[in-house]
C-alpha cells in the first residue's frame, strides 16, 4: 500500500486514482461527522461530495506540516456550514427525531447515543471540537487548527464540554431513577 505522502504527491500531480485511494480511509469518518452536522442524510452526502471535490481542487495548496485529516476536516466543516447557511437555528433544535439523520443512523442501538446528548447541550463549535477529539482522536493542537481557535480556547472548551456532558448524563440517569421509583 502506498504511503500517504506518496499518494498526496501523486494527487498534487493530478492523479484522481491516487486521490481516491488517499481519501478512501477518511470517507466513512467524514460522512459520520457530516451526518451529525447536517439536517438530512442527503445534505451529508452532498457535503461529503463537495468536501472531496474541493480537497482535490485545492490539494496543491495542502501544506504537509498539517495532518491530511486535519486539512480535510477543515474543508468538511466549511462545507457543512455552507449547506446549513440558511439555517439560523442550532442543529439540535433543527432536527426532529424522525428526520434527523443522526437518529436514523443509530436507530438500531438500544441505549441513547452520547452524541445526541452532546449535540443537545453543546454549541456547534464545541460539539465539533469534541467530535474531533474523541471520535477522530485528534490532538488539541490539530483541533485548534481546524477550528481556527487558540489551543487554550480548545482545551478550556473541551473540559467544559465534558463537564456539561457529564451533567447531562447524570441528569438523565436521575430522571430515569425518579421515573422508575415514582
Amino acid at each position: 500500500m502506498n504511503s500517504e505522502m506518496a499518494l498526496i504527491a501523486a494527487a498534487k500531480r493530478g492523479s484522481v486514482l491516487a486521490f481516491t485511494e488517499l481519501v478512501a480511509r477518511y470517507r466513512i469518518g467524514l460522512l459520520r461527522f457530516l451526518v451529525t452536522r447536517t439536517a438530512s442524510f442527503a445534505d451529508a452526502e452532498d457535503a461529503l461530495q463537495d468536501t472531496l471535490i474541493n480537497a482535490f481542487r485545492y490539494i496543491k495548496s495542502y501544506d504537509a506540516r498539517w495532518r491530511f485529516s486535519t486539512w480535510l476536516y477543515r474543508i468538511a466543516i466549511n462545507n457543512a456550514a455552507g449547506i446549513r447557511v440558511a439555517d439560523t437555528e442550532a442543529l439540535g433544535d433543527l432536527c426532529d427525531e424522525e428526520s434527523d439523520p443522526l437518529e436514523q443512523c443509530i436507530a438500531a442501538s438500544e441505549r441513547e447515543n452520547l452524541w445526541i446528548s452532546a449535540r443537545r447541550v453543546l454549541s456547534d463549535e464545541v460539539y465539533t471540537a469534541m467530535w474531533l477529539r474523541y471520535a477522530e482522536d485528534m490532538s488539541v493542537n490539530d483541533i485548534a487548527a481546524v477550528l481556527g481557535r487558540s489551543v487554550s480556547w480548545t482545551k478550556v472548551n473541551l473540559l467544559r464540554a465534558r463537564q456539561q456532558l457529564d451533567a447531562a448524563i447524570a441528569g438523565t440517569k436521575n430522571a430515569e431513577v425518579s421515573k422508575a421509583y415514582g
Partner: protein
Amino acid sequence: MDKLAKQLRDDAQRIEVEVSPELDARIRASLAGLRQETGRPPRERIKTASYWWASSLTGIAATVAIISVINLNKVDPESAITEPAPQQFTMPQFTWKPKPAVLTETLEQELDAIQSDLKKAEQVIRDDFDKIGI
C-alpha cells in the same frame, strides 16, 4: 482512556453510515470532470538566455515603434498656431459720382426715397463684406 472518552468513541463508531455506490459514482465522476477541467499539463517555459534577449529586444523595438508612431501623428504645436491677420487692410476705393438732386416729388417723398436708397446701399455693402469674409 477514561470512561466518558471510551463511550464517546464507541458511540461514534455506532453511527452506522456507508458511502452508497451512487454517491461513490457521483464523487468519481465529479473528480474525473475536475481532472479534465484543470488537468491540462502546463506549457513548458523556455528559460534560456537567448529567449531572454530575444524577448527584451522585441520589447524595446516595440516601444520605440510605438513612440515613433505617436510622434509622427502628433500635431506640431507651432504649426497649429494660426497666423495673425494682416494689420493693413486695404479699403476698397469708391468712386463717387455725385449727381444733382432733381426734386420731382415733395420733400417728404424724396426723403423716403433717399432713405430707401441708403438702406439698399448699406445692404449691398454688407453683402460685399460678407463675400470678402470680414
